[in-house]
């Protein structure tokens, strides 16, 4: 599967990318929502985007809204991976079209479980 990892923290991006590699997946990365949309515009859609909430330029939730406004991205799943853990936040993200939600900090098992739940467990 092809993943787009979107987080303003380089350290967190590498951590997520390492887990993806271990699971046999491919990836691209972006430091904010705007950058992510550009990458998608140039490379076509990904199977899934893994998106932080708090980022400069364009936040994760703005990215979800922008991506869901594009019919050609309808098949791309979106999982928020964030320190935002209030019920209202999770509801908001789901209502705007996020498929799943993982709260930081998280374990490797939790990450792999979420991908499996989303049907994204098959290697690329």
């Amino acid at each position, binding site marked *: 599967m092809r993943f787009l990892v979107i987080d303003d923290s380089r350290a967190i991006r590498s951590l997520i990318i390492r887990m993806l590699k271990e699971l046999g997946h491919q990836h691209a990365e972006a430091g904010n929502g705007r950058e992510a949309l550009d990458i998608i515009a140039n490379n076509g859609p990904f199977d899934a985007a893994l998106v932080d909430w708090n980022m400069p330029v364009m936040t994760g939730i703005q990215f979800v809204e922008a991506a869901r406004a594009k019919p050609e991205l309808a098949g791309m799943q979106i999982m928020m991976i964030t320190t935002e*853990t209030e*019920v209202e936040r*999770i509801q908001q993200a789901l209502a705007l079209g996020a498929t*799943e939600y*993982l709260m930081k900090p*998280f374990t490797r098992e939790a990450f792999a479980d979420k991908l499996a739940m989303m049907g994204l467990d098959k290697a690329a």
Partner: protein
Amino acid sequence: MADIKPDDYEWIRQFLYTQCANDLGQGKEYLISSRLGAVAREAGLADISALVTSLKARPLGGPLHQKVMEAMTTNETSFFRDGHPFAALEKQIIPRFLSSNSGRPLRIWCAASSTGQEPYTIAMVLRTNFPDVANRARILCTDVNATVLKRTTEGVYSQLEVNRGLPAQMLVRYFERAGANWRAKAELRSMMDPRVMNLAVPWIGIQPQDIVFLRNVLIYFDAKTKREIVTRIRNTLAPGGVLFIGGSESILGMDEGLSREQFGMSTVYRRAA
């Protein structure tokens, strides 16, 4: 932590076997060190050897014995563990129960429910897909470990626990924040019927069950205990009732009176109707 003396190892092995039929086998010194080190420290004892000496001097069944037994059980679990058993429950097992049933309450038993993620998963499947059934269903939750069972009563889970296997939709629908943790709503908690119970001891007073989850616990028993438990479970199943075991477990050769059925990736064992 110093090495574990063979005598102490043997005493702990025997103790576990009599308390909960868990068969430690040989070569599990690392497990004893990692799990009982903290128990010893907490009790102000220098090491495992001092812990065993202290246990021998006290009556069985006291709080220290309890702590040791509980520390030695493996309570690993997660919401929607393995996924497919709950799909089979939703798509096949419950619809079939409903089509062949006069409307009596569904009886479900989680026979080694640990910290409760398994019974809460079942409760969510029922509430979401079969609200009428959920209103009348009670889930019998049993475990030999009273401390983990208490968590089923409380229904409180850490962020790390709800992150594992629980779909976000279910989290926001069925849980509310409790400080840094998450607490199952009353509509789920009210379905739980938790009781401390050792599966290795013949039970009385458990009503015939329509569905039994006996997952990831048989692995801790020797063949004889396993066979006895499977036989008693079979006798506790209502006619037509079904048994789920863990994905890596087998009851081959112990399944007299049960027929194997395959639902997608799930194997279930059914008692003749």
